[in-house]
């Protein structure tokens, strides 16, 4: 697939500043037993930021949804599957699932399915850095600091620089 960078009609916001905004949206809803679960890979970066900003005592959960994706039959197994790590008991816990971009909702669906194979959580909420619209499933974010309508030909990508700084970019599929 050919991709090239293209300027957007709007300026892309500062991703690190969005993390701070997202943390402030979550803060009032935190319970002592709330834990964060980041979805590989962008969601893990965001979850790590939130974990530090909110000074959460519990360990962070990391999840790779490759084994639960609904497009496995068409696209096969991702070449770089990372181990999921849920270092706490999911049973009865309040979880906040963290991803970088909410788009079709399919990744969220896969992540929820995987979490239920670890136990029955009391509640799962969804925190995302950006909601770009075009949902294909009845899923919405509980916490989201930035909403933007992007046509399906655009891909909104979060990347982490060596310095750890997060940055948005947009690819256009030809």
């Amino acid at each position: 697939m050919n991709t090239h960078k293209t300027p957007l009609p709007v300026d892309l916001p500062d991703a690190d500043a969005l993390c701070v905004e997202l943390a402030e949206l979550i803060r009032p809803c935190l319970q002592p037993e709330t834990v964060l679960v980041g979805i590989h890979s962008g969601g893990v970066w965001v979850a790590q930021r939130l974990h530090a900003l909110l000074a959460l005592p519990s360990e962070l959960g990391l999840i790779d949804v490759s084994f639960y994706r609904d497009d496995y039959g068409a696209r096969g197994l991702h070449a770089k599957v990372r181990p999921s790590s849920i270092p706490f008991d999911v049973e009865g816990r309040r979880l906040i699932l963290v991803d970088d971009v909410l788009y079709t909702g399919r990744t969220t669906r896969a992540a929820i399915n995987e979490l239920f194979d670890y136990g029955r959580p009391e509640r799962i909420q969804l925190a995302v850095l950006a909601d770009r619209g075009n949902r294909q499933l009845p899923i919405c974010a509980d916490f989201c600091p930035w909403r933007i309508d992007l046509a399906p030909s655009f891909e909104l990508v979060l990347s982490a620089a060596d310095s750890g700084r997060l940055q948005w970019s947009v690819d256009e599929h030809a």
Partner: protein
Amino acid sequence: MRNPQLSANGELTHLLSIEGLPREVLTQILDTASSFLKVSHRDVKKVPLLRGKSVFNVFFENSTRTRTTFEIAAKRLSADVINLDVTRSSTAKGETLLDTVDNLVAMHADMFVVRHASSGAPHLIADHLRRLGRDDVHVVNAGDGRHAHPTQGLLDMYTIRHYKHEFSNLVVAIVGDILHSRVARSDIHALTTLGAAEVRAVGPQTLLPTAIGKMGVRVCHDLASGIRDCDVVIMLRLQNERMNGALLPSAREYFRCYGLTPAVLALARPNAIVMHPGPMNRGVEIDSDVADGPQAVILPQVTFGIAVRMAVMGILAGN
């Protein structure tokens, strides 16, 4: 000529042998296996990846451990598993190998896990499927004759990587009946592809293939010099039936010369690991004090084998 295991765009469609597979493919399988190993530690040890797929275990030769671990792996991927003891049914009635395959394809098989006493049988099936235009049906070699046992080779590599982290500085000794061993061949191909510093083939002259040196290994007929300063010792099973021929005088004689005892193992590096593909013959190729000792990783090999087979099936069925 294209590697018959790879599709036109380099994706793994069958696993027939480790020979000729690129390092990236081996590494992808090992990396994916470590994710599946985590799944095996959960309460719900299943993922939905192969839901609705039918995996046929077609064993033309006896095997309990390999067939069982393939069955567990397929079930943990949510596949439907059908075990066929073909030696007692169709083949005994005179059906040819490819007729058996055609019948199973007509039953909508998605994957064949094949063990056969004849080298090349899984390759023959893969070739047949290609001629039928059925690239969506995958073949995994679960051991063919003296040729290859690629999933055993991969689980051995997973075990070595787990304990030693990387291959570049490792000295690995493979000890015993290399002549009849498909495991040894798969291990040698995997170790050389992954860049092990030195691979030694250790055994009596009668149990080493004459051209073994051409596989890039150092040949040692003396156990002590073969084990000295190595990081990994892979012991092979001495098959009892070899005792009857002219290859070996007796089991006791073999143990005296090539049995791995604590005294011999002391010649290896202090943190060396001892592996064995099973089933073990205690007191023939390995002393019980070694098999049950702190350096043995023989049972972890079995656990890792399930994760590795899940990775192989998960990657194949998606390609």
